[in-house]
């Protein structure tokens, strides 16, 4: 056996060390920022903090949550995610189902319609025409400006479509013989059978719409910004001067620890759904992307 040879065992040991170091490197920056957010202002400013908080306190967090704009943005984000994910999944499934029947004459002109969608992945109008369109449609400062343009992700639709194709034809035929129409077949058979895939895609869409910040920045007024947009402006241009900071607070607060807290709050929802995401997505991606 090759793995009993001495050079290979040496390689194996080194390999384990390299892999461990690299993966720790993926996490360390996040831990450092987390430590900063819990540390006292003095410790942060004098660079004493590495991976463990020094002068532990929660002032950065209580201060962030005391900000009305912050909570409002959080609500905007939740609303946007819920609306965006439900609408997006509905349109994605409704589009993927008929297209999954394009082979074998199940849907005449299916290939052409599929290319109609795929073409938009290859070529696009770009920023300015999109911006002018939203203006012309009078969607400026409306939640629909954030939800509608990306509602149908062609990439996710193709993943869904390829998954639907793996469902045995017999299931559909049996249901059609029983007198069910396509809508019933979709909702009673296809959707229940593909729940793991649907969950995967829904999680992807959730993460994507939680993370989206640029559309909020260009289309929405400040009061209606989602949290990602607010964080983007706070992190890149932080400002303590606008609000009065009391004497006792200033000992624990610096711009840096405050910013660290905001970074961590922004990352938290993703970290919370990550375990679920991770369980599903490997299977989901491989099923959809690597078509046999």
């Amino acid at each position, binding site marked *: 056996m090759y793995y009993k*040879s001495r050079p*290979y065992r040496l*390689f194996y040991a080194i390999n*384990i060390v390299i*892999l*461990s170091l*690299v*993966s720790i490197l*993926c996490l360390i920056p996040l831990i450092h*920022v987390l430590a900063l957010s819990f540390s006292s202002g003095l410790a942060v400013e004098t*660079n004493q*903090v590495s991976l463990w908080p020094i002068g532990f306190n929660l002032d950065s967090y209580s201060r962030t949550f005391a900000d009305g704009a912050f909570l409002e943005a959080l609500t905007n984000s939740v609303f946007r995610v819920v609306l965006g994910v439900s609408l997006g999944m509905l349109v*994605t499934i*409704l*589009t993927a*189902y008929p297209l999954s029947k394009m082979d074998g004459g199940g*849907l005449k002109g299916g*290939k052409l*319609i*599929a290319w109609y*969608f795929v073409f*938009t992945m290859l*070529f*696009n*109008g*770009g920023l*300015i*025409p*999109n911006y*002018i*369109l939203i*203006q012309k*449609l009078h969607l400026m400062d409306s939640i629909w400006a954030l939800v*509608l343009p*990306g509602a*149908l992700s062609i990439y996710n*639709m193709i993943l869904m479509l390829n998954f639907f194709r793996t469902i045995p034809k017999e299931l559909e035929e049996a249901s059609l013989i029983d007198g069910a*129409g*396509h*809508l019933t077949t979709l909702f009673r058979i296809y959707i229940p059978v593909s729940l793991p895939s649907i969950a995967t895609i829904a999680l992807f869409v959730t*993460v994507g719409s939680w*993370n989206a*910040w*640029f559309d909020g920045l260009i289309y929405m007024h400040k009061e209606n910004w989602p949290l*990602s947009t607010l*964080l983007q402006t706070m*992190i*890149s241009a932080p400002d303590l001067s606008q609000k009065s900071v009391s004497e006792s607070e200033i000992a624990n607060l610096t711009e*840096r620890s405050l*910013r660290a807290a*905001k*970074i961590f709050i*922004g*990352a938290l929802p993703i*970290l919370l759904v*990550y375990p679920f995401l991770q369980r599903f997505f490997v299977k989901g*991606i*491989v099923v959809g992307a*690597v*078509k046999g």
Partner: protein
Amino acid sequence: MLGRKGILYAMLLPGILLTFIFHYLPMIGLVISFQNFKPWLGITGSEWVGWENFQTVFEREDSLQVIWNTLFIACVKIIVNLVVPVVFALLLNEVRQARFKKTIQTLVYLPHFLSWVILGGIVIDILSSKGIVNTVILPTFGIDPILFMADGNWFRFVVIATDSWKEFGFATIVFLAALAGIDPSLYEAAEVDGAGRWKMTWHVTLPALVPIVIVVATLAMGNVLNAGFDQIFNLYNPLVYEKGDIIDTFVYRVGLLSSQFGLATAIGLFKSLIGFIMIIAAYQLASRFANYRIF
């Protein structure tokens, strides 16, 4: 009354409409790259200027510099983001303890899911002049502080390195899937023939990876002018515009902040066209050499 087939077309309708409005209408809007577009005059009322905007793009020094920056950053990213994941997948594939492997995967996939708003904030904090790298890590090795976020060349390096840091883990997935699909009897046969692990890697593993590497590489060609708007926007500052400004950030500043709509659209159209040509060519190659099809 809709027939059984009719309902299928009805299901497609919302998707077709949304795509038409939010993807095809903006393509029509690209005509403003041939106009001196004024929002209050609209597309129908604005003055037509022919190729003037394009001439300006290819005459102005700043826009030429921006195109070069984009091409440079995007191409290096394409190479790095192919090599690092393949090497990492090969190393990870050697691990026999399933638990350890799973843990590593969990850790390296994570940054992919965090946005550049978050990661940009982290990167700037760590690499700024007051950050932990410049105040603690570099001095430990006796190295002078480095202006990562203010020196153009260092900035490019930071952009490429942090992009790889964010995406390499996730990019290994397809390669790991391909590695897992290799027929174990090939290795057994190689072993019987007296091959060591190195020979097995060279003659069994690598050939099995070639098709998927070709697919990933060719499809990445569509990104030759995609240097990563989200990342650059969240990392850059006026000090590094010269080396770090890219087409997308330039379009944003010139178009939306300075309201030079025609010029910004022209450079955007240039980018879209190059991307389109590259992806079509790449798809032809991928379908010919790796038998790849979208559907």
